[in-house]
C-alpha cells in the first residue's frame, strides 16, 4: 500500500513539472452570466481560426491546450439562451493565458426557454449514461405542487419510481439506497422531505446537475447504481437581489449579493400548509412541518492567492411530525451539511481542488405512549478530499484523487421481542482514484481508471481493493457515435429498508455489517447516438448490471441471535431509446425503456417493487415568446409488481391477555401472501400540463406557473390494503400554482 501512495504523489509532482511546447500556449478561462456572474456550465468555446474548442465544466471553467501563440485569434463563446460572443485573443507561448468571458442573456424577459449548453465541441467526450440538466429545464416541466429535482429525474429513461406519490427514484434496476446524491461534492444521506414526497433540494440553489445512470468514472465511489451531482449557485457578484416564491405547500426566499472579492447566496424554504399533502396520502392529515436552508459564500482574490477560489457552504434541512396526542408517535429527521473548498488553477494546465466536508443525518421515531417501535439513527460523515486534474498539450487528461472518510453511524432499533439493539459503527475509508482520459484523437475518447480502497468501512476482508472502470466514445461518423462503459462499483453503507413499505418516514443508514461481504455491482453499457441534424438527436443505450452481496433486511428475524441482514443478489438489464427534436420554439422528446430487474434472496428470484417492463414518455415544451411558455408530458408505465393474496385466515390476536379465557374471537382476517411480487398492477399513465408567464413590473420580475397533474384523472392504483380491501390510488387530478417574485 505504501508503494501506491508513493506512486500517487510521484505522479502529481511529475505532472506539475510537465513542460510545454514552446511554440504553443494554453487557453484557459471561465464563462459566466454577465448579470449575475454565475458560472455557465457546459457551454461551448471555440477558437474559430483553428476550429478547436472545449466545453466548460460544472464550474464554468474551460481549457484548450496547443493553441498557436503570438497570433491574433477569435474565441467564440456560446450558450443557449445567451448572446454568442466573439472575443479577440492572443496567447503567450509556453504559458497558460486566462480569459474570463461574461455572456449576456439573450433577452431580459427570457423569450427563449433557457436550457443548458450542449457540449457540441467535445465530440469524443466519454459521456454515456450521463444526463446534464439546468434548473430552467427542470422548471419547464409540469410541476407536482412545486419544482422538484428528483421528480424531474423520473422523466429520464432508465429512472423509475414506484408511483407519483413518492420522489424516491430507482435507476436501472437498482434500489433507491444505491443512488449517491451530492451537493457540491458532499453526500446527502436522506434527501427527502415529508415521507419521501419531495426532495430536500431547493431548486433555487442549483446551478447545474449532472446525473450518471451508470458507468460513472473512478472519481465517484460508495454507491452501486447512480450519482446525482448538484452544483450550487455562487450568488450574484454584481448586485444584491432577492427572490420570493410561494406554492400551495411552501414559501421560499432567496437573498444574494456581492462580497469583497466574492459573493454569497442564502436560500430558505418552509412549509406552511399541509392541506395539499392529503392528495398524496390517501386523505390522511399529517401534522408535518419541514424546512431547508442553504448558504454559500465564495472568495477569489488574485492578490491573496492567484488562481484560487475558496467557497464555504452549508445545507440544513429538517422535518418534524409532531402529534399533540400523547398516544400517537412523533418523528423528526434532519440533515446538516457543511463544506469548505479550495479550487486552484496554476500557471500550468493543472486544476486541483481540496475539500473538507461534514454531513450529518439524524432521524428518530419517538413512540411516546403508542405501540410503535422506537427507532433512532444518526450518521456523521467527515471527509477530506483532494482532486487533481492535469490536461496535456495533446488534450489527454489525468485525474488523481485522494479521499478520507470517517463515518460514524448509530442505529437503535427494537426487534420483534421488544429488545433494543445498536447497529452502530465507526469506521474510516481511505481511497485513492486515478483515471486517464484519452482524448487526443477526435474519433475516439477513452476514460479509464480505478478506485483503490486502502481501508474499508465494513471491515470485511473480502472487500474489493480495486474498482476498475472504463468508458469510451467512438465517432464512427460526425453524426454517429458508439459509446460504452464497464466498471466495478462497491457500496459499504446501506439502509435498513423494508421492501414491503410503499411509504416510509425515513430510511436509517448504517455501515454494512462485517459478516457480509460489501455489495458490489458490475455495469456493462453499450450505446449509440445519432445526430443527423443539429435539431434532432436519437440515442439508444443497452445495459446489464449485476449486483452481488446485496445486504437486505432479514424479514425472518425473530430471535435476537438471528442476523439483521442477509446477502442477496441482483440483476437488471434493459434498453433505453431517446428521440429529441429541438427547433425553437418547440422542443419535443420521447423515450421508451424496456427493462428487467430481479433480486435473489434465500434462493427465491423475484421482481423488486420498482421493476417496470415498459416505460414510454412524451414531453413537449413550447415557447410562445413574450414570456409565455407551456409544456405537456404524458407518461406511461406498464404495471408495477405486487404480491398476490393467496388466501386469508382468522388470526388470533393477543389484544388483551388479561381477558378471561374466552374462545370468543380476538381473531381478525390475516392475508396470506403468495410468491413475492409475482402479480402486476394495471398500467400507469398520466397527462400533465403546465403554462407559465414571466413578466416585468417596474423593477420586479414576476413568474406565474399553473400546472395540472393527471389531467384526465386516471385512477392509477398505488396499493391494495389487504387488511381492509381498500384500493388506494395515486395522485388524482391536481391543479397547482406557483408565483415567484424577483427583485
Amino acid at each position, binding site marked *: 500500500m505504501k508503494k501506491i501512495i508513493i506512486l500517487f504523489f510521484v505522479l502529481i509532482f511529475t505532472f506539475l513539472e510537465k513542460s510545454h511546447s514552446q511554440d504553443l500556449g494554453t487557453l484557459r478561462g471561465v464563462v459566466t452570466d454577465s448579470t449575475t456572474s454565475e458560472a455557465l456550465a457546459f457551454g461551448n468555446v471555440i477558437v474559430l481560426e483553428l476550429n478547436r474548442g472545449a466545453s466548460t465544466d460544472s464550474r464554468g471553467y474551460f481549457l484548450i491546450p496547443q493553441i498557436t501563440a503570438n497570433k491574433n485569434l477569435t474565441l467564440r463563446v456560446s450558450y443557449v439562451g445567451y448572446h454568442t460572443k466573439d472575443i479577440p485573443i492572443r496567447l503567450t507561448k509556453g504559458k497558460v493565458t486566462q480569459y474570463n468571458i461574461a455572456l449576456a442573456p439573450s433577452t431580459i424577459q427570457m423569450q427563449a426557454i433557457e436550457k443548458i449548453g450542449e457540449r457540441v465541441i467535445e465530440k469524443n467526450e466519454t459521456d454515456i449514461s450521463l444526463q446534464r440538466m439546468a434548473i430552467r429545464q427542470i422548471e419547464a416541466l409540469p410541476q407536482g405542487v412545486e419544482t422538484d429535482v428528483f421528480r424531474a429525474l423520473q422523466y429520464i429513461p432508465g429512472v423509475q419510481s414506484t408511483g407519483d406519490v413518492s420522489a424516491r427514484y430507482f435507476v436501472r434496476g437498482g434500489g433507491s439506497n444505491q443512488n449517491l446524491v451530492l451537493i457540491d461534492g458532499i453526500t446527502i444521506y436522506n434527501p427527502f422531505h415529508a415521507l419521501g414526497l419531495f426532495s430536500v433540494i431547493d431548486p433555487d440553489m442549483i446551478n447545474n446537475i449532472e446525473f450518471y445512470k451508470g458507468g460513472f468514472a473512478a472519481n465517484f465511489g460508495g454507491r452501486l447504481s447512480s450519482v446525482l451531482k448538484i452544483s450550487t449557485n455562487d450568488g450574484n457578484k454584481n448586485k444584491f437581489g432577492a427572490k420570493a416564491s410561494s406554492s400551495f405547500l411552501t414559501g421560499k426566499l432567496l437573498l444574494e449579493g456581492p462580497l469583497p472579492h466574492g459573493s454569497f447566496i442564502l436560500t430558505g424554504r418552509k412549509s406552511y400548509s399541509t392541506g395539499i399533502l392529503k392528495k398524496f396520502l390517501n386523505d390522511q392529515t399529517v401534522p408535518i412541518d419541514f424546512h431547508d436552508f442553504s448558504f454559500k459564500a465564495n472568495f477569489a482574490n488574485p492578490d491573496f492567492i492567484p488562481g484560487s477560489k475558496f467557497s464555504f457552504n452549508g445545507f440544513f434541512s429538517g422535518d418534524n411530525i409532531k402529534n399533540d396526542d400523547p398516544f400517537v408517535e412523533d418523528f423528526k429527521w434532519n440533515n446538516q451539511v457543511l463544506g469548505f473548498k479550495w479550487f486552484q488553477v496554476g500557471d500550468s494546465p493543472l486544476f486541483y481542488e481540496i475539500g473538507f466536508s461534514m454531513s450529518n443525518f439524524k432521524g428518530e421515531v419517538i413512540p411516546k405512549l403508542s405501540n410503535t417501535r422506537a427507532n433512532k439513527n444518526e450518521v456523521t460523515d467527515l471527509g477530506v478530499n483532494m482532486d487533481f486534474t492535469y490536461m496535456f498539450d495533446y488534450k489527454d487528461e489525468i485525474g488523481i484523487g485522494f479521499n478520507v472518510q470517517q463515518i460514524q453511524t448509530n442505529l437503535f432499533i427494537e426487534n420483534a421481542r421488544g429488545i433494543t439493539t445498536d447497529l452502530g459503527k465507526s469506521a474510516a475509508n481511505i481511497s485513492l482514484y486515478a483515471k486517464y482520459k484519452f482524448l487526443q484523437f477526435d474519433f475516439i475518447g477513452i476514460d479509464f481508471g480505478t478506485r483503490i480502497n486502502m481501508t474499508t468501512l465494513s471491515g470485511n476482508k473480502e472487500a474489493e481493493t480495486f474498482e476498475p472502470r472504463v468508458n469510451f466514445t467512438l465517432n464512427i461518423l460526425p453524426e454517429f457515435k458508439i459509446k460504452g462503459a464497464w466498471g466495478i462499483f462497491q457500496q459499504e453503507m446501506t439502509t435498513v429498508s423494508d421492501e414491503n*413499505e410503499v411509504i*416510509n418516514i425515513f430510511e436509517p443508514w448504517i455501515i454494512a455489517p462485517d459478516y457480509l461481504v460489501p455489495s458490489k455491482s458490475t455495469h456493462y453499457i453499450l450505446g449509440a447516438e445519432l445526430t443527423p441534424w443539429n435539431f434532432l438527436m436519437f440515442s439508444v443505450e443497452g445495459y446489464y448490471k449485476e449486483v452481488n452481496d446485496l445486504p437486505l433486511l432479514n424479514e425472518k428475524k425473530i430471535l435476537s441471535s438471528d442476523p439483521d441482514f442477509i446477502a442477496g443478489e441482483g440483476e437488471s438489464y434493459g434498453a433505453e431509446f431517446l428521440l429529441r427534436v429541438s427547433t425553437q420554439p418547440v422542443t419535443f422528446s420521447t423515450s421508451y425503456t424496456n427493462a428487467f430487474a430481479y433480486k435473489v434472496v434465500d434462493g427465491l428470484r423475484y421482481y423488486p417493487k420498482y421493476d417496470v417492463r415498459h416505460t414510454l414518455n412524451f414531453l413537449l415544451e413550447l415557447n410562445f415568446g413574450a414570456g409565455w411558455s407551456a409544456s405537456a408530458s404524458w407518461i406511461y408505465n406498464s404495471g408495477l409488481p*405486487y404480491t398476490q393474496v393467496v388466501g386469508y385466515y382468522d388470526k388470533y390476536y393477543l389484544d388483551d391477555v388479561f381477558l378471561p379465557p374466552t*374462545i370468543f374471537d380476538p381473531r381478525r*382476517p*390475516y392475508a*396470506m401472501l403468495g410468491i413475492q411480487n409475482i402479480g402486476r398492477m394495471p398500467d400507469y399513465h398520466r397527462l400533465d400540463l403546465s403554462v407559465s408567464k414571466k413578466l416585468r413590473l417596474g423593477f420586479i420580475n414576476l413568474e406565474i406557473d399553473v400546472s395540472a397533474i393527471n389531467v384526465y384523472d386516471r385512477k392509477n*392504483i398505488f396499493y391494495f390494503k389487504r*387488511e*381492509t380491501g381498500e384500493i388506494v390510488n395515486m395522485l388524482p387530478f391536481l391543479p397547482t400554482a406557483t408565483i415567484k417574485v424577483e427583485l
Partner: protein
Amino acid sequence: MKKLLLALPIIFLLIVSCEDSFDPYGELENKYIFNCVLRGDTTFQTAYLSKSYMVDNYDPYSNSDDATIKNAQIRIWEEDNVALFRDTTVGRNAESKYKTPFSFYYTDNYQPKPGAKIEIEALLPTGKRLKSTTRVPYSISFRKSESDTNIRLSDDFVQVRWSTYQPNPVFIPRLIIYYTKPVDGQRIRFSAVVPLNYIEFNGQFKPNYAKPNSDLAYGTDMKTFKKAMELISDGIADKSSIVIFSAFMEVYSLDENLSTYYNATARTNDAYSVKLTETDFSNVLAGTGIFGVFVRNYYILRMKHDFINSFGYTPGLSDVQ
C-alpha cells in the same frame, strides 16, 4: 401520413379511456391454523383449529363461511402425562359475521407445570399432523421485603418487586382494585385497573397502561392511584355504597414463543408508513399459529381504612396495622 396522424389520437384516447381491472388474488393456498394458548393458573385450556379461505371480493371481512376444522384429535404431553382435548361448540354473539356456532377444543384436566417442556399435536381428519413445543415459564417470587404490603394515606408511591429464574422473561403487569357496588339491588363485584399514570389530552385524562417488558418491578405514584380510586365512583352520588376490598398486583409471565407472538401481533407500525405486510410469527410445524403458555402471578396489597374512608368509600376487609 394522414392516417397515422389520425390514428395516434385515437390510440391515445383508447389507452386513456381504458379502466383496467385489478385482481389482487392468486390461487388459494391451503393452510392449517392451530392456536393453543395455555394458562398456568387453571386446568381449563382451549385450542382452536381452522383453515385458510378466500373471499370473492376485496373485503376480507365479507367471508361468513366458518373455516373451523372439527373432529381433529388434539393431545398435549408434559413428560409422560397426556391430556386430550375434546371438541365442542358454543353460540356466537349476534354481531359475529359467522352464523354457525363457534367450534373449539378444550380440556379441563391440564394445568402446565412451571419450567416443564410441553408438546402439542393435532391430528386432522385428513391425516395431517400439526405439532409444536414450548416451555412453561417459571412462577415469579414477589420480594416482599422490597415491596409495599399496605397502602396508606401518607404513601407517595406504590411499588412491587419480584424475581424469577426465567431466562429472557417477558412480563405484563397490572395493578387492580377490587370493589363491589349495588346494581339493581344486587351487590356486584368489579375491578378497576390502576394505570402507570394518566395523560391529560384535550381536557380528558387518558390512562397509560404498562406494556410487556422484562422489568422486575412495577410502581405507580399515589396521585395516579388516588385518581383511579376517584374514578370508581364517577357518576355515583352515594359513595359509601362502594365497598373496597384490596389491590391486586397481577403479573403475567409469558413464555418465549408467546412473547414473540405478542410482540409480532400487538405492536403496530407507525401512523404514517404504509407497509403491505404484517410481521408474522408461528411455532407450529406443518401449519401456522401459536402454541404458548402464560402464568398469572398475583400479590395482595391491603388498603388502610383511613385511606379508603378518605374517598367516602366503605372498607370491605378488616383494617391493617
